[in-house]
């Protein structure tokens, strides 16, 4: 048999596109986990967090490389996923089943990948706008009530933001979406990248759920902690 496709064409097939979604997904998961680890420093207090933020800033051009890399990965991830989803919709055909029943081992998260994905994307745009474009992006004047008259830097920015219960609630919902997305994505990507055996499927699915949950809980803990401090136990 002869295959006429070139190496580049390998990425235009469904399997090739899945590979792109998978590899970029891994990069994004890496970012999410790093982001989480950094943000959890908030729980240790202003110095730890502001130090971390400063170090990150000091990376300078390197930071931009990472940012551009992430943007490229994100664009590829989202566009390929949407492309595949559209093709799949078409493949299913215009005549839908009258009765549809789920019998596979994978339940809800799988069906919500596109919805959770789009939610995350929308949140992400808002989140970037919220913390890096609008308002006090450098944290020069972030005075937190009850923490003295000095600016608390980026720590203060975050604290003031999450002191708003509505905003916090919004963030909690959004990061739960991220968790849901990952709870399927992490075992799914192992299939895509040819790494999941029959025997390890149960473990991989459990691991995915644990990581998904950890991400959701980890990110949620920050606004919840701040709410608690701002409104209940005091700063």
């Amino acid at each position: 048999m002869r295959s006429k496709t070139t190496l580049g064409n390998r990425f235009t097939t469904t399997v090739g596109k899945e590979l792109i979604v998978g590899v970029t997904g891994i990069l994004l998961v890496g970012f999410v986990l790093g982001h989480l680890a950094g943000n959890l420093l908030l729980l240790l207090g202003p110095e730890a967090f502001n130090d971390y933020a400063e170090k990150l800033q000091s990376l300078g051009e390197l930071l931009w490389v990472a940012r551009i890399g992430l943007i490229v990965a994100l664009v590829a991830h989202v566009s390929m996923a949407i492309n595949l989803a559209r093709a799949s919709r078409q493949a299913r055909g215009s005549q839908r089943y009258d009765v549809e029943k789920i019998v596979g081992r994978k339940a809800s998260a799988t069906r919500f990948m596109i919805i959770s994905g789009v939610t995350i994307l929308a949140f992400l745009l808002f989140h970037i706008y919220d913390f890096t474009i609008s308002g006090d992006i450098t944290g020069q004047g972030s005075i937190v009530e009850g923490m003295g008259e000095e600016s608390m830097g980026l720590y203060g920015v975050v604290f003031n933001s999450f002191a708003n219960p509505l905003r916090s609630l919004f963030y909690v919902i959004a990061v739960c979406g991220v968790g849901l997305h990952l709870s399927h994505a992490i075992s799914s990507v192992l299939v895509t990248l040819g790494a999941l055996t029959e025997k390890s499927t149960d473990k991989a699915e459990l691991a995915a759920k644990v990581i998904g949950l950890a991400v959701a809980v980890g990110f949620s803990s920050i606004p919840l902690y701040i709410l608690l401090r701002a409104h209940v136990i005091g700063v």
Partner: protein
Amino acid sequence: MAGNTINVTLKVWRQADKNAKGAFASYNAKSISTDASFLEMIDVVNTGLEKEDKEPIVFDHDCREGICGMCGAVVNGVAHGPQSATTLCQLHMRKFSDGDTIVLEPWRASAFPVIKDLAVDRSSFDRIIEAGGYISVKTGQAPDAHAVVVPKVKSDAAMDAASCIGCGACVAACPNASASLFTAAKITQFAKLPQGDPERRSRVVAMVDQMDHEGFGSCSKHYECEAACPKEIKVENITNMNREYMRTLVTRD
């Protein structure tokens, strides 16, 4: 043997031909023995229709022992019906209760157009095999069967994959109408065997290409295919296919 009889109502998709607009029609299947197979139940309904000089329900079937892969329909939302690891012809009416309504629909996928009623055109599967689901050996070229030893584990794994009957339930059950499980099973069978090695890279590329070309969707790991498969072909085959595919990014045949 139970030897009971039940009455069920069938709600069946009827469609005159490929281009016609189909619709559901209802039929009563009366006094059906619970020892009858599902297809024998349709036979009884069809006999009644023929007696009334009406066209019976068209459905594909041949061996009626679960191996030819010709039969199949979605029964109450599940490909091949409620019993796992069972083709429609091996499903028996004892799995249903008196008074049940059974909704019967053809495989639905763009790449499996309905021909009539419950019969669909699965020639897309043949074209996927045609693209690379073979080993290029001509009659007479083969060396002695023992010239190449094959470890039992690999041979057994190849056999697991090779037991696919090409019925199309995986596509029917997949929310994306993906043919990944079918395609992957064939790729895996040959990838496990030394005889399949010389063409393993071109095979996976050619077959995946054809699968896309036929208009099947992609795999988003719902595992519905595995649950619907009457031969219990596992998603691990898709993992394998992807690994074979990645191999083509680094090396050539």
